[in-house]
């Protein structure tokens, strides 16, 4: 590489640098003109062209100004401490979710509802097989909690589903439209790129009236192993898991796998999943 250096002895003058040499002069000033023949041709040309020679000087002078301005030192001590503190929060074992506090007067009502639910459940449904939570389920719950606590950086925060769909564009194997589960503007959504177990995908943290749930969307081919207990709802298959007070529901749609995480009751989460699945299919 040859660094830019001015050539003495002007013979021909031009008022402007020659268009065909301008970018080559820039590259020469940066030591990026690598072909020796090209360098020789440029030098020969500049010997006879005052316009290009002056231009080369200006390029070098501009470069020196930027270099000098950029060299002003910056202090990173406080920033480094802040980053380390947040990394501490990310790498320590995750606290388990605190139990929900129920007002004393509600205990009676809760017990009655529980008893009724258990009775109906016993009479109506087959006993459910216990499914061990897969790493994917644990990772989804962890990322959902971390996002709610503000410990994971979010990219786009918006009330506009279309904006989220635009953010998703090009990130997954095929363009997808975000399921519009509620009327436009009634939710606040924040996005991030997530890595759950070995699967990569988008996470959309949805704040609907102060209650949050996360919707993960990832290519189905990246997921293996059990997805949970199978439930059929509105002719669609869902896979349900419970972990640390959260319900995690999966469903497939084409080559994408959707995963919904929420602390609502299972039936409510299933209803929400069906709502999402229905609107994204339409």
């Amino acid at each position: 590489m040859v660094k830019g250096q001015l050539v003495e002895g002007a013979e021909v003058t031009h008022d402007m640098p020659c268009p065909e040499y301008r970018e080559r002069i820039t590259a020469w000033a940066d030591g990026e003109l690598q072909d020796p023949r090209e360098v020789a041709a440029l030098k020969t040309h500049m010997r006879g062209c005052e316009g290009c020679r002056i231009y080369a000087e200006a390029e070098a002078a501009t470069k020196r100004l930027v270099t000098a301005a950029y060299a002003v030192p910056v202090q990173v001590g406080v920033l480094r401490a802040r980053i380390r503190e947040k990394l501490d929060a990310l790498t320590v074992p995750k606290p388990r979710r605190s139990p929900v506090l129920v007002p004393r007067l509600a205990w009676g009502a809760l017990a009655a509802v529980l008893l009724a639910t258990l009775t109906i459940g016993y009479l109506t449904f087959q006993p459910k097989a216990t499914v061990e939570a897969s790493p994917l389920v644990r990772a989804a719950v962890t990322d959902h909690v971390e996002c709610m606590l503000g410990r994971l950086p979010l990219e786009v925060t918006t009330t506009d589903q279309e904006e989220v769909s635009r953010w998703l564009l090009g990130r997954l194997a095929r363009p997808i439209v975000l399921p519009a589960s509620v009327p436009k503007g009634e939710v606040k959504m924040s996005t991030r790129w997530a890595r759950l177990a070995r699967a990569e995908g988008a996470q959309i943290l949805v704040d609907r009236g102060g209650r949050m749930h996360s919707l993960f969307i990832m290519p189905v081919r990246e997921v293996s192993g059990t997805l949970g207990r199978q439930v059929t709802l509105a002719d669609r298959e869902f896979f349900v898991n419970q972990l640390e007070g959260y319900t995690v529901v999966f469903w497939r749609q084409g080559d994408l796998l959707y995963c919904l995480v929420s602390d609502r009751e299972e039936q409510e989460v299933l209803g929400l999943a069906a709502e999402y699945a229905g609107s994204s299919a339409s």
Partner: protein
Amino acid sequence: MRGDNDTWGQSSRGEFEAVVLPHLEAMLRLARFLMRGNLADAEDLVQDTVFRAFEAFPRFQPGTNLRAWLFRILRNAYVDLLRRRGRQAELTESLAVPQESNSAVDEFRAQGVRERTAADLEAALAELPADLRMALLLVDGEEMRYDEVAEVMGCPVGTVRSRLHRGRRLLREQLLKLWRDRTPR
């Protein structure tokens, strides 16, 4: 995975800090120019970049260009920030680059010797479209090669060359404008 102590726990975090944090100063310096001198915004941008890098670190290939990888994440974070603020137009090169006569170049050279202040440079750089500004800062400030800058900006090497050429011309024009405005008439 981050959060899974078997694969991404304290030891990985230590490795991350050891290789990434030494680049903090370079990232903050670049971010300060991208955020037009606003240090608080620049620190937020770098913090966002570090956490994105932390998440993506298990996928980083050891032996590849870490500095280019980090600056690429920083650029993506910056682009997302502009988009969130509805200022994505600042990224594009829509600002016309003026024809530059030799007399203007001469004037620049004469003025440049007398008045090369960092504040002028910052003000002039702030007027440049973000991608031109970034190409200039990476090459002249970080002394990166064109191919490294191409990796950071996700564009061909020829585009880097063109952006530098256009960026420097525009920067001279902006500096001259500043200096002419200040000259007593």
